[in-house]
Every structure is written in structure tokens, then in C-alpha cells.
């Protein structure tokens, strides 16, 4: 995986420095804050999933379940009249199918609703080939991956602010996979904690300072 470190007075400056070195855009990278003082921020910026096949590239080595899922989704899209390529993302766990093509916004839908529905249908179709608890993730034009990356950045920013002010921050309402990405991004941070409040579909993550009593608390 390609990565570079960047320094700057602010997080943005540090990330920009690393992006220039990598010659990548912000949407294709993952940012990890290595150190942060009032004068300087040091980050490590890694390019996301370079192993994933590009559009038109040869598909991944056949894996029984993944290949069945890929073939079923390809057939489904054909019936829907959608011209798109379906490939299996290499090295991804759980099995992830990437759908790529032109004008696939309709396949993503409002806040990813159509994509989520497509994933449900896929899992129902492939269900009998999967072990208990095993799932297939469907992504269209890396929408889901980009969203996860974006919310992780939001989580990092919120964590920085919480550390500076000591006040909890309530984020916007998010989908379950986005909330999960935030909890995972912050679970190793000794200074902040994350929890969720509200009811679906308005459930929100709250990022707050970790108090000594939180150490043993269950999320």
C-alpha cells in the first residue's frame, strides 16, 4: 500500500502535504493522525485499496462464493437493463462486489438506498451458498468505500475537537455501516468515546471525552 507522511500547522495542511507527495486526491486516501500539537500535526496518508481491479481489468481469481455472487448480480443488472461491470474486490473480507459503469447514480439512489436494497437482494439470492453470519457487500462506483472514508475523517475531526474543548459532539444522522465505521475508527482512541443516540433513521453518533468510568463501559 502506498503511503506518505505529511506535516503542517493544521490537519488540512498536513494531509495536503502528503497528498502532493502521493499525487492522489483526498477521496482516494485514508488519513491517520500520528501526532498533534498546537503547533504541528503529523499524519500518515495511505492510498485506499490499491489492489482493487480497475475498470476493465481482469477479474479476481475465481472464488466459489464470490464468483456465484458476481454472476448473480451481473444477471440481475442485465434484467434491470443496467449496463455495468461487476468484479470481485480482491483481498476484501467480507466478499465485496464492485459495480462500475457509466451513469450509475440511479443504482446508488437517495442516500444509498437503492444500493442498500441491491445488497439485500444479493444476500438473499446468494444466501444458501453462504455460511451463517457471512455476508456479501455490494458497492457501486466505490460509493460505500468513499462514504466510510468520509465518515472516518469526520470522526477524526470530531475527536480532535472533543480533545480540545472537552465537550461532546453529536454528528449528523447516519446509516448503520457509517456509524459502525465511526465506532471502529475511535475505539482505539484513549481520550474519546463514541456512542449512538436516537431512533432510526435519525440515529446519531455522539463523540465525547472518555472518562475514567468509561474504561470498563460497554458501548
Amino acid at each position, binding site marked *: 500500500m502506498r503511503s506518505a507522511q505529511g506535516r503542517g500547522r493544521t490537519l488540512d495542511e498536513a494531509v495536503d502535504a502528503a497528498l502532493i507527495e502521493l499525487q492522489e486526491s483526498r477521496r482516494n486516501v485514508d488519513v491517520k493522525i500520528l501526532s498533534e500539537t498546537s503547533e504541528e500535526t503529523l499524519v500518515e496518508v495511505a492510498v485506499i485499496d490499491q489492489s482493487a481491479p480497475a475498470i476493465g481489468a481482469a477479474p479476481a481469481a475465481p472464488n466459489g462464493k464470490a464468483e456465484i455472487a458476481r454472476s448473480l448480480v451481473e444477471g440481475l443488472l442485465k434484467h434491470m437493463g443496467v449496463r455495468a461491470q461487476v468484479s470481485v474486490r480482491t483481498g476484501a473480507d467480507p466478499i465485496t462486489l464492485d459495480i462500475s459503469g457509466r451513469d450509475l447514480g440511479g443504482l446508488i439512489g437517495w442516500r444509498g*438506498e437503492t444500493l442498500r436494497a441491491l445488497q*439485500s437482494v444479493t*444476500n*438473499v439470492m446468494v444466501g444458501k451458498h453462504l455460511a451463517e453470519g457471512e455476508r456479501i457487500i455490494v458497492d457501486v462506483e466505490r460509493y460505500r468505500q468513499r462514504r466510510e472514508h468520509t465518515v472516518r475523517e469526520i470522526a477524526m475531526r470530531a475527536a480532535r475537537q472533543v480533545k480540545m474543548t472537552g465537550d461532546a459532539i453529536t454528528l449528523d444522522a447516519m*446509516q448503520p455501516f457509517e456509524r*459502525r465505521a465511526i465506532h471502529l475508527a475511535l475505539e482505539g482512541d484513549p481520550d474519546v468515546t463514541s456512542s449512538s443516540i436516537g431512533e*432510526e*433513521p435519525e*440515529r446519531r453518533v455522539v463523540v465525547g471525552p472518555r472518562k475514567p468510568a468509561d474504561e470498563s463501559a460497554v458501548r
Partner: protein
Amino acid sequence: MPGRDPQRGAERIRKAIALVNSVADEAGDEEITPTEIAEAIRDCLELSDVDAVPNVRRYLGEALDAVSDGMPADFVAMTLYAALGALREGT
């Protein structure tokens, strides 16, 4: 039909879908019981739009049965998406 509000119907179905997706996606920040999902689906069934638009009640009923039968979350979600789609098409 007086009192019809397709938007409210869609919102309730989306709420039920969001609950089911929380289970399927394992957000890890809440415990959702089948009873809560069934309650959310029953809330949808109370709306007048359910009878005004063909198939919506049928799909919601199937989703409720699927919850009772312990079917996988994705199956319940798929059936609820079908109800949402039917509601959209019929309004």
C-alpha cells in the same frame, strides 16, 4: 382518500428498513429485537396508504411473517423495500 399522506407512509417503511439494516449491518451500537422490528412494521400497516396502493399491505404482511419466522434480516429488508417500491409506484 382523506388523510392520505404517502410521505408519512414512506417514512414509516424507511424506519422499519433502517431497523432491519441495523441488524444486518451490525452497527454494534444498539440491540434491536425482532419485537421492535415487528412493531415498526405494524406501525406501517396502520396507515391508510397501505390499502390505497396495491401490494403494499401484502409486502408488509410478508415482512411481518418473515420476522415472526426468524428469517434473515436481508430477507425482511428486501420485502420492506418491495413495499416501499410499491408505495412509490402507486403514489
